[in-house]
């Protein structure tokens, strides 16, 4: 769930065209880049796919934080592969967004100057090795909840990107859970680290789904367009129901004293996260917002001479080739 609180755009277009468009979506057809689409559909998708792409890119940072300190060569290799996958996801998603008429550079600029957001979760610090486990298990686990249904989203390029991404995400979640398992079965210090990671990442993971949107007009429009497949509450419930038994299996305690199985609804009752914290993080006041954005800006600014150099060289080659012809 790397797109949060994406507001859908109102659409004022020819009602006949809109109805025909909606009929295609209702029939389960995929909308392709050259097809007619309402302006609101296009803009909402750019926002949503862009936010997802940015989350993959910024999401490299909290895990990259531990690559140089991974405890074994195998863990280091797995973590490198995972972070590399995430950069790859960013590439497919920027590619999908480009089919809607916005360039990767434009989207990047909007990330760097704060006009576009990335998932709130990446504004939390990764403090111990167990956080690599918690991020894989909980954060990727939450992402999968949202991304699996999005494989059926109405926009063709987005749907195809999601299919590729989902294959890799399930491996990510498994490696995270495996780290947690090793630590939960390890020394007392390791177990303490694992519990501490769960304590710190539980509520921020629940926040990944965004506040309740069951009454939101924007969400209703996005769901009608099949850009959004489930409400935030449905996904959050599903995530909790899946994750609590996994925590029990690890012998770890979910930091929620109100957590109870509710036979009637066939799911857990659980405490809502502190939404004021969520809005603080969204506004830029999370523990790592400043560092994350500064790191991305620095990478971009420090890399300007590289991008310019490579472009200049490519142009010289092209000119030389033309002259030779």
């Amino acid at each position, binding site marked *: 769930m790397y797109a949060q609180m994406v507001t859908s755009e109102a659409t004022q277009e020819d009602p006949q065209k809109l109805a025909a468009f909606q009929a295609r979506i209702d029939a389960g057809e995929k909308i392709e880049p050259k097809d007619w689409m309402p302006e609101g559909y296009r803009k909402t998708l750019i926002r949503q796919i862009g936010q997802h792409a940015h989350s993959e*890119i910024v999401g*490299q*940072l909290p895990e*990259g934080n531990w*690559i*140089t*300190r*991974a*405890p*074994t*060569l*195998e*863990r*280091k*290799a797995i973590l*490198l*592969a995972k*972070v*590399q996958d995430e*950069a*790859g996801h*960013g*590439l497919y998603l*920027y590619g999908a967004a480009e089919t809607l008429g916005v360039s*990767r550079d434009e989207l990047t600029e909007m990330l760097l100057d704060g006009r576009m957001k990335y998932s709130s979760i990446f504004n939390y610090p990764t403090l111990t*090795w167990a956080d690599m486990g918690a991020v894989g298990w909980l954060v990727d686990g939450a992402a999968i909840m949202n991304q699996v249904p999005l494989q059926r989203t109405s926009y063709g390029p987005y749907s195809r990107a999601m299919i590729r991404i989902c294959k890799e995400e399930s491996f990510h979640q498994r490696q995270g859970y495996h*780290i947690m398992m*090793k*630590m939960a079965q*390890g*020394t007392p*210090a*390791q177990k303490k680290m694992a519990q501490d990671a769960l304590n710190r990442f539980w509520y921020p993971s629940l926040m990944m789904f965004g506040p309740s949107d069951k009454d939101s007009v924007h969400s209703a429009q996005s769901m009608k367009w099949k850009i959004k497949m489930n409400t935030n509450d449905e996904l959050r419930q599903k995530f909790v129901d899946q994750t609590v038994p996994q925590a029990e299996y690890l012998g770890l305690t979910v930091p929620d004293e109100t957590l109870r199985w509710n036979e009637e609804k066939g799911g857990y009752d659980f405490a809502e996260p502190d939404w004021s914290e969520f809005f603080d993080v969204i506004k830029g006041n999370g523990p790592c917002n400043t560092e994350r954005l500064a*790191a991305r800006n*620095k*990478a*971009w600014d*420090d*890399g*300007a*001479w*590289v*991008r*310019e*150099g*490579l*472009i*200049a*060289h*490519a142009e*010289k080659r092209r000119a030389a080739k033309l002259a030779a012809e």
Partner: protein
Amino acid sequence: MTDRDALFEYLLRLGDNTLVLGHRVSEWCGHAPVLEEDIALANTALDLIGQTQMWLGLAGDVEGEGRSADDFAMLRDVWDFRNLLLVEQPNGDFGQTMMRQCLFDAFHFDLLSGLAGSTDDRIAAIAAKALKEVTYHVDRSSETVIGLGDGTEESHRRMQAALDLLWPYVGEMFMPDAVDTALHEAGIAPDLPALRASFDTRIDEILRQATLVRPDNAYAHSGGKTGVRHSEHLGHLLTQMQWLQRAYPGAAW
């Protein structure tokens, strides 16, 4: 020095080169100038760490004292490392990282090509596998050095500065000692001085296309692959890499 000692020492050199360079390259994760480079750098680091597991794993078998690749990586101190000084040099800017990569890749490619014909089947098999990856590494790093050398005034200036800075670390790669000579005579490893000619031909062509000037300075720092005198940089790298294993001895991860 017995044959086994020489072989063990040689395998540590191979594994420590890929370990230390893989670690250095992995420091870039999430900070590269463009997304494709982030992916390529992570991919290179991943290849190098994979090669490390094979070389140091074999070193453990040859030593026969039950040490694993992880034990070698995480529990030795600076003086026991046998990597070249070149690979432990800090990343600097992206140009310096790619220049270091290109100089090492050009050497690594020829070295592995020789090792793929080793009389030791285990070494030949690892070298053949690694060579596939390093063929891509050398293509990519040389293309990047050419592109940036021949790019803008600024990129040219930075690449020349990187070359000047790193050139004194080239010589150590080709300087044979008793270990190299023993392995070459046994048909296990290629003759290092003989690799130099191929390296020079390749690098001269890259530098020509990159419009960079090969430094006059023939001085070569040494002490990395013998472990006699590493640079100050290696200790800091190990501090980070080994921290968890040192702080929580005996834990399984």
